[in-house]
C-alpha cells in the first residue's frame, strides 16, 4: 500500500495516525467475515463501519462532495482520507516524473574527483599491502628453477651467432648417376658470349668504326645494334677508363638467367648442296634447243603471235604494226609481207599438211589466207577447197558473216573474211584443219567463243551461258573435247555430248595461255602470276605440278609435237625449255626437268617474250618478243 509520509504539522490528521492498523501487509480478504478489520496500536479492534457504502452512496458522494476527487479509500482502516494540498501537489509532481522534493536541485555543478592533472598527494590514503613487503614465492620458485637449470648446465649463456658461412665437402657422397631433382626439360643456362677482337682495348684498326658507322650506331636503338658497345682504341693500359655499363650488363645477365624462357633450338646443319634435288643431267635428256641460231627481223612493232607451218618450212608472224609476215625458217628470209587493217592479235597455221591456210585475226575480223608458199599442188587444192563451197538451200542466220575475197585481195592471198560482232583475240585450228575457233573476250555476254567450219562456212556458238571472261581456247588433239580457259579455271567440254566433263582448278590468279600435250592427257597453263601449272587430266583437277621458274608474268606456253619438250616464255625475256616426259605406263609419273634457260629477247616496255611455238618436227623453238624480233633457238 502506498505509504504517504505525513507532515508533522498536520494536526488534523494526527488522530488518524492513532488508528493505524497493525495487521501488516496481509490481504484484507482475510477479515471479510469478521466485524473488525484489524487492531490499532493499543491492541484494540478496529471495527468496520457499520454500513458499507453502496453504489448509490458512492454516486451521491461523487455528485455532492467537492473533495471527492482528493479522497482516497484506505483499505486497512476502511476509512476515507482526504488528501491535503501538499499531498496532491506531490502526486502531480511524481506523475510528471519530477523529483518529489521541491527543493532538490538536479542540475548541481559537477566536481571532477579524478583529474588529468597530476596531484602531489595520493587520492587514497590506503596503507600498502603486506604482500608488497614480502618476497614473492612464485617468483622465487621460477628463479630457483632457472638457477637449478644453470647449475645443471641445461641453460648456457647466449653465444654470438656465427655469421661467416661454413663450407664443407658438399659432394663427398656424390652420385654420378643422380639426375636433377626435377626437370624432365632442364636446359642449362648458356654461357656468356666470349669477346671478339673488337672488344679489345687496343683492337686492330679495321675493327674501329668509321665516323659514319659511329653515327649510325648512335642513332640505332639499343636492340638493333650489332655491337652493344663502341670499339675504342687506347694507346696504353693506363688510359683505359672504367666501363660504364658493367653493372648493367651483369644485371641483364641475371635477368636473362631467371626471366628468360629457355628453349633448345635445333640448328639446321645442312650442307646446302644436299638440298639441291638430284635431277637427271640435261645432257642425257637431249635433244633440246640450246643456242640461239637465227633472228628474224622485219617487224617494226611487237610481235604478238607466231605459228609454224605443218611442214616446218615456213613461219607466220603477226605484229602490232598491222602486218603479217611469212618467213622461211631455215634462212630467216621474209618471204611475204601482208598489210592488214589492224594490229594482229593472233595467227594460226592450219595443222593439216594438205591444206595451206593461215588464220589471222585483227580487230573484229578473222582472215583466212592462202600464203601460196610451198607445194604448188597443195596451194591450188586449197583454193579449190574454198571455191568448192556450195551454199545450202536454206540460209541460216549466223553470228558471223562469211565473205569470199576477190580481185586484188584475192591476189594478195585473202580467201575468206569472217566479220565478227566483237573484237577477236585468238584463233585456233582443230587438228584436222576443218574447224576453227575464235575467241572474243567479253565479260557480259555468252557470245565469247565461236566454232567455225571452213568447208561448210558454218558458225556455231557452243555456249549458252557466260561462265567468265574467256582467256583462250583449244581443241583436244585426238578426241572431241574442247578446252576453255577463263581467268582461274579451265573447263573441258565434250563437243559430241555437249556437256561439261571437267573443271580444272589452276590455283592461278589469271591464266594467260594454255597448251595441250599431243597425247591429250596433259595440259599446261601459264599465268600472269609467274606460274606454270601442269595438269594430268587423268589424275585430278588440281595441278600435278606448279613451276615457278619465271620471274615475271608468263605470256606463252607450248608443247612439242614429237619430242617430250615444253617451253614457256615470260616477261622477264627468257624462254625456259623443260623436259616433260609422259610415259605410256599410267603408274609412272611424268618426269619434269628444266633443261635450258634461253635468253636473248630484250625487254621493252616491261614486255619480254610474247609467244613461243615449237618447230613441228625439229627440237627447235621459236619465240617472238616485244623487241620486234622473232628468234629461233636450236
Amino acid at each position, binding site marked *: 500500500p502506498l505509504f504517504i509520509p505525513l507532515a508533522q504539522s498536520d494536526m488534523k490528521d494526527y488522530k488518524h495516525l492513532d488508528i493505524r492498523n497493525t495487521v501488516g501487509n496481509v490481504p484484507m480478504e482475510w477479515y471479510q467475515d469478521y466485524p473488525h478489520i484489524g487492531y490499532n496500536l493499543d491492541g484494540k479492534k478496529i471495527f468496520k463501519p457499520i454500513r458499507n457504502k453502496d453504489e448509490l452512496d458512492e454516486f451521491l458522494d461523487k455528485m455532492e462532495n467537492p473533495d471527492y476527487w482528493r479522497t482516497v479509500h484506505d483499505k486497512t482502516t476502511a476509512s476515507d482520507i482526504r488528501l491535503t494540498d501538499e499531498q496532491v501537489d506531490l502526486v502531480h509532481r511524481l506523475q510528471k516524473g519530477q523529483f518529489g522534493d521541491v527543493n532538490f536541485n538536479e542540475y548541481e555543478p559537477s566536481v571532477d574527483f579524478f583529474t588529468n592533472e597530476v596531484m602531489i598527494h595520493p587520492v587514497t590514503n590506503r596503507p600498502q599491502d603486506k604482500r608488497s613487503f614480502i618476497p614473492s614465492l612464485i617468483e622465487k620458485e621460477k628463479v630457483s628453477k632457472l638457477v637449478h637449470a644453470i647449475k645443471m648446465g641445461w641453460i648456457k649463456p647466449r653465444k654470438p651467432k656465427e*655469421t*661467416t658461412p661454413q*663450407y*664443407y*665437402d*658438399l*659432394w663427398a657422397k656424390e652420385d654420378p648417376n*643422380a*639426375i*636433377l631433382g626435377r*626437370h624432365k626439360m632442364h636446359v*642449362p*643456362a648458356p*654461357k*656468356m658470349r*666470349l*669477346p671478339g*677482337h673488337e*672488344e*679489345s*682495348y*687496343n*683492337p*686492330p684498326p*679495321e675493327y674501329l668504326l*668509321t665516323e659514319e658507322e659511329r653515327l649510325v650506331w648512335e642513332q640505332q636503338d639499343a636492340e638493333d645494334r650489332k655491337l652493344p*658497345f663502341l670499339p*675504342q682504341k687506347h694507346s*696504353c*693500359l693506363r688510359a*683505359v677508363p*672504367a*666501363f*660504364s655499363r*658493367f*653493372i*648493367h650488363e*651483369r*644485371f641483364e645477365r*641475371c*635477368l636473362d*638467367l*631467371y*626471366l*628468360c*624462357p629457355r628453349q633448345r633450338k635445333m640448328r*639446321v646443319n645442312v650442307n646446302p648442296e644436299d*638440298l*639441291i634435288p*638430284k*635431277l637427271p643431267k*640435261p645432257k642425257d635428256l637431249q635433244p633440246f634447243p640450246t*643456242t640461239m641460231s637465227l633472228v628474224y627481223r622485219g617487224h617494226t612493232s611487237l610481235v604478238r603471235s607466231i605459228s609454224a607451218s605443218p611442214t616446218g618450212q615456213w613461219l607466220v608472224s603477226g605484229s602490232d604494226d598491222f602486218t603479217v609476215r611469212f618467213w622461211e625458217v631455215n634462212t630467216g628470209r621474209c618471204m611475204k609481207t601482208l598489210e592488214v587493217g589492224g594490229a594482229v592479235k593472233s595467227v594460226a597455221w592450219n595443222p593439216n599438211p594438205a591444206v595451206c591456210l593461215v588464220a589471222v585475226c585483227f580487230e573484229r575480223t578473222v582472215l583466212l589466207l592462202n600464203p601460196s608458199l610451198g607445194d604448188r599442188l597443195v596451194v591450188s587444192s586449197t583454193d579449190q577447197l574454198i571455191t568448192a563451197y556450195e551454199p545450202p538451200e536454206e540460209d541460216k542466220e549466223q553470228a558471223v558473216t562469211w565473205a569470199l575475197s576477190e580481185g586484188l585481195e584475192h591476189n594478195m592471198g585473202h580467201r575468206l573474211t569472217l566479220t565478227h560482232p566483237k573484237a577477236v583475240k585468238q584463233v585456233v585450228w582443230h587438228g584436222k584443219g576443218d574447224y576453227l575457233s575464235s575467241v572474243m573476250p567479253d565479260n557480259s555476254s555468252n557470245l565469247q567463243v565461236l566454232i567455225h567450219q571452213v568447208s561448210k562456212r558454218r558458225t556455231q556458238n557452243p555456249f549458252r551461258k557466260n561462265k567468265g571472261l574467256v582467256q583462250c581456247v583449244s581443241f583436244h588433239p585426238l578426241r572431241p573435247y574442247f578446252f576453255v580457259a577463263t581467268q582461274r579455271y579451265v573447263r573441258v567440254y565434250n563437243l559430241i555430248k555437249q556437256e561439261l566433263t571437267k573443271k580444272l582448278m589452276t590455283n592461278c590468279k589469271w591464266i594467260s595461255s594454255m597448251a595441250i600435250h599431243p597425247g591429250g592427257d596433259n595440259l599446261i597453263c601459264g599465268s600472269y602470276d609467274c606460274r606454270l601449272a601442269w595438269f594430268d587430266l587423268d589424275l585430278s583437277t588440281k595441278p600435278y605440278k606448279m613451276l615457278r*621458274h619465271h620471274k615475271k608474268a608468263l605470256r606463252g606456253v607450248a608443247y612439242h609435237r614429237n619430242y617430250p619438250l615444253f617451253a614457256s616464255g615470260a616477261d622477264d625475256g627468257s624462254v625456259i625449255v623443260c623436259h616433260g616426259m609422259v610415259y605410256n605406263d599410267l603408274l609412272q609419273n611424268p618426269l*619434269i*626437268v*628444266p633443261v*635450258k*634457260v634461253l*635468253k636473248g629477247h630484250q625487254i621493252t616496255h616491261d614486255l619480254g617474250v610474247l609467244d613461243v611455238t615449237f618447230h613441228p618436227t625439229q627440237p627447235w623453238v621459236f619465240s617472238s618478243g616485244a623487241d620486234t624480233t622473232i628468234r629461233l633457238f636450236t
Partner: protein
Amino acid sequence: MGGLQKKKYERGSATNYITRNKARKKLQLSLADFRRLCILKGIYPHEPKHKKKVNKGSTAPRTFYLFKDIRFLLHEPIVRKFREYKVFVRKLRKAYGKAEWTGVERLRDNKPGYKLDHIIKERYPTFIDALRDIDDALSMCFLFSTFARTGKCHVQTITLCRRLTVEWMNYVVTSRSLRKVFLSIKGIYYQAEVLGQLITWLVPYQFAHDHPTDVDYRVMATFTEMYTTLFGFINFRLYQTLNLVYPPKLDSKAESELKAEHEEDYAMDSESYLEKLSALSASLARVVATAEEEENQLDLFPTEGEDQENMQAREKEQKEQEAQKRLFEGLKFFLNREVPRESLAFILRCFGAEVSWDKSLCIGGTYEVTDETITHQIVDRPDMDKQYINRYYIQPQWVFDSVNAQMRLPVEDYFLGTTLPPHLSPFVEEKDGDYVPPEKLKLMALQRGEKPVQEEEDEEEEDEEEEEEDDEEEDDVDDEELTEEKNLKKMEGTRAQGKTLAVKVTPGKVKPWETGSVGNKVRLEQEEKAEEKRLAIMMMKKKEKYLYDKIMFGKKRTTREVNKLTAKRKAHEDASKSQKKQKKAKKQ
C-alpha cells in the same frame, strides 16, 4: 555418342603450364619472394609451343612456368623460412613502434636465417656440374668484391666475395690452370681450365663504380647469395683436390718472410691476413707436406692406327700445356705502381714467375726495385728517369700477349714509349672464310717457328716488304674465300658472258669458244655445271628453297663482312704509309 562432353583447356598443354601470378598465389608468396625463390632454385619460365592453347584462347602476353616446376617448389623448406622472415619483420616493426628496445634486441638475436646447402646439392648433383656453371658466379663475386663498403649491399657480402675470389685466385695460381687472358674495354677476361672445364670470368678494372639507378640490387644480391654458397663449396673441394688447407693459410716459410715490421700500421690484424693472401706472392700451406708436385706423365699404352695418332696428338697437347705452365719460370718481375698490380701478379704467378712491387703499394712485396736480378720491369708510363741496364722495361700488354701466344714474344715491340701492336682476343677461333687480322697471321707464323720479318731496316725495303706481305695476305684471304662464293661469282660471270655473247651472235659466225683451247673447254664445262645447278635450284621445293636461300644469304653476309674488314684494313695501311712518306719527305 555417349560419354561426357570434353571441356576445353582441362587437359593437354593448358594444364602443363601455369602463369606467374597463379603460381605465386599457389605458393602464397609475395612477388619479391617468388622471384627470390626462382633465382635460388633455378626455375625459369617456359615458352609453350602453342601459346594460345595454353593461355586458354587469349593472346595476352604472359609468362608461363611449368606446372611441375611450381609443384616442385611447393615442398621447398625455404618457403617456410620466407614466411617466418615475413613474420619476423612484422614483429620487429611492431616492437619498434612500441619502443620496446629489449624486444627489438631479442628479435634481432633470433632473426630467422636459412642455408642454401641443400639447394646447391640439389641443383648440382655432381661437382663437375657445379664447376661447369661457375662462370657467372665468378664474374658476379669479382664485381661485388670491388664495391665500396658503404651503401649498395651488406658489408659481409662484400668481404665474403672478396675472400672467395682471393681463394679462387690462389687456387688458380697453385694449380697453374690459367690459359687465356684478354684486356677488353669492359675489364679483364681470364680463362682457366679447371678439371677439364674451361671457365671464363670477367674482372672489372679497379675503379669506383657509379651505381646506376635502374638496376635492382635485390636481384643481384639474391644471385650473389646463391653464388657465394656455391663458390665456397667449390673452393673447398678444389683446395681438397690439391691437398691445400682450407680456409687457405700461407706457407710457414712464406709467412715468416712476409712478416713486416710495421704490419699493424698497414691493416688491422683481422684484415692483414686476407691482404697477404690477396697479394698472391706466397705459396699456400698444404695438408700433407710434399716436396714438389711430381709431373703426372701420361701412361703409355701400346695402341694402333688412329688411336695411336690420337694418343700422339694428346701427348703433344699435354707437352704444350706443360710448356705453357712454365712460360715465365725463372723470370723476375717488378711491377711499377701504375700498372694493375693484382691482375699482373696473378697472371705472372700463374706462369711461374717471381713478382714484387713497391712496399708502399701493397703488402707482400718480396724484393726491391734495386734488386739486380730483376729481369723485367713492367712499366706503363712514357718514360723512366732511372733505368737499369740489365733488365727490360716493358709495357703490361707483353705479359697478356705472351700468355695468349703461349710463348715469350719478342720484347722489342713492347718497350717503353713504343706504339703497341694491336691486342687480339684469344677467344676468337677463325673458321674457314672468317676474317683473320694480319697480326694474327704473323703470330701464327711466329708460333710455327718461322722467323719474323726483319724490321728496323731500311725503311724503303720495309715498305716493299710490306707490300709483298700485303699481296700475300690478300692471296691468303682469296684462297680462304668460300668456294661457294667463287662459284657464285663465276656463275654471275658466265651469265654476263652469256648475255654479251647472245647479243653479239650473228648467224653464220663461228663461236669463239667452240674452236676450243684447253682453257676454254674447262670453262665450258664449268659453265655447264653452273647452269645445271641453276636449273636444279629452280626445281627445289618451296620449303627447301627457303632454307637454301637463307643459308646462302648467311654465307654471303659473312663474305661481305670479311671484304669490308679487309678493305678497311687496306685503306688504313695506305693512309699510314702515305703519312710515313710525307714525314720522310719533310725530314729531307
